[in-house]
């Protein structure tokens, strides 16, 4: 498995600013914690046999981007999402250093805010997917991300925190793309179910495709007749 590693240009800018303002120690601590955090995600993903496309180091966090099916079990998604923060917490507890502890808390706070594509968003989306449809979970999570994103953008502007402002802008730009791809993602979600035979243990009867949930196999109630999701999806994708 070839995993590419990238440092975002904004990270270089923040490193330069940190260097010329004398925040060497803080920067090293930040970067160390971010890398440990991403190692947590990566190791768990490898154990669960997920395909990792790349790791991106952002100024105040990191991203592990997967090339995986959308219909992966929710529990696997959750384990991978929480292992990053957990790894970081264990590492800091092991180090027993006040500065590491303080900066780890900052990174945890930033990372667990539910804004796409941070871990907080993933965990929130997973929680929504437990109770509501894939499509609805995705759109609600995005709207919450937008709300929080603009709130943080506004507050960082008022507090004159330039780097964090730029960082939130970066997240909002990624969010914009995710919203644009909302329908496409839903099509991908359905298409995977058409292509592959997932072995879902739970079953649900729904009235339309938009109500499909992760981890469930569906029957559609059409004119009081139950049709399997496979048959419906065959009709949808073979027609197109």
């Amino acid at each position, binding site marked *: 498995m070839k995993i590419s590693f990238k440092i975002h240009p904004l990270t270089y800018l*923040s490193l330069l*600013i*940190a260097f*010329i*303002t*004398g*925040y*060497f*120690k*803080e920067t090293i601590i*930040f970067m160390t914690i971010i890398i440990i955090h991403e190692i947590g995600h990566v190791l768990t993903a490898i154990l669960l046999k997920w395909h990792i496309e790349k790791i991106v180091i952002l100024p*105040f966090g990191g991203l592990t981007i997967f090339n995986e099916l959308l219909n992966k079990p929710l529990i696997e998604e959750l384990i991978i999402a929480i292992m990053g923060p957990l790894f970081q917490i264990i590492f800091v507890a092991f180090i027993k250093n006040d500065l590491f502890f*303080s*900066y780890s808390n*900052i990174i945890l*706070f*930033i990372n667990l805010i539910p804004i796409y594509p941070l871990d907080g968003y993933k965990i929130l989306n997973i929680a929504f997917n437990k109770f509501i449809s894939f499509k609805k979970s995705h759109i609600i999570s995005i709207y919450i991300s937008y709300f929080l994103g603009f709130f943080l953008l506004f507050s*960082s502007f008022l*507090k*004159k*925190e*330039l*780097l*964090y402002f730029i*960082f939130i802008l970066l997240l909002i730009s990624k969010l914009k793309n995710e919203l644009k791809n909302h329908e496409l993602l839903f099509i991908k979600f359905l298409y995977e179910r058409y292509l592959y035979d997932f072995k879902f243990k739970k079953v649900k009867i729904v009235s339309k495709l938009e109500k499909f949930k992760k981890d469930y196999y569906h029957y559609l109630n059409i004119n009081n007749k139950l049709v399997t999701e496979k048959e419906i999806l065959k009709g949808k994708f073979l027609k197109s």
Partner: protein
Amino acid sequence: MITIIIFLVTIISFKSSEDFKNWFQVHVLNNSFSFTNIASKYESLFGNPIPFKSFIKEKPVFSEKINYSSLTQYNNGILLNVDNNLIPSIGEGLIIFIGKKDNQNCIIVDQKDVEVTYCMLKHIGVKLYDHIEAGSYIGEVDQKLLLYFTKNGEYLNYEDFI
């Protein structure tokens, strides 16, 4: 690659030009990069480079001033007979040097517009590149504290600072 190029260009310039060598000595080796000045200008315009840093409350060990019973000029600095062996920082800044100078344990704090050198320390309570507040503990002396106030290699009048 860029670092190697800069290094080679500098070495070649040294060999070929005496003027460049002198300029380099004055402006690069003798002058110090004032991180604290840049940090304070940056923070006044763009906030702290580390977000939410203000939420980290550093517990001060103590918040004091240097109290001394006598002061004498010593070389280009001043020798104080301190009342308390525990030495606080005169101002806010960044620790840019910890080590020996003239066989004495010294630390240098880069403050805004001045570098303060604290010598004759028997114990140092800070680490290199620590950011310290005014009045925070930096080290311990036996009875005497030697201070120097410099800016770009030139000694300044101590009365402006203490």
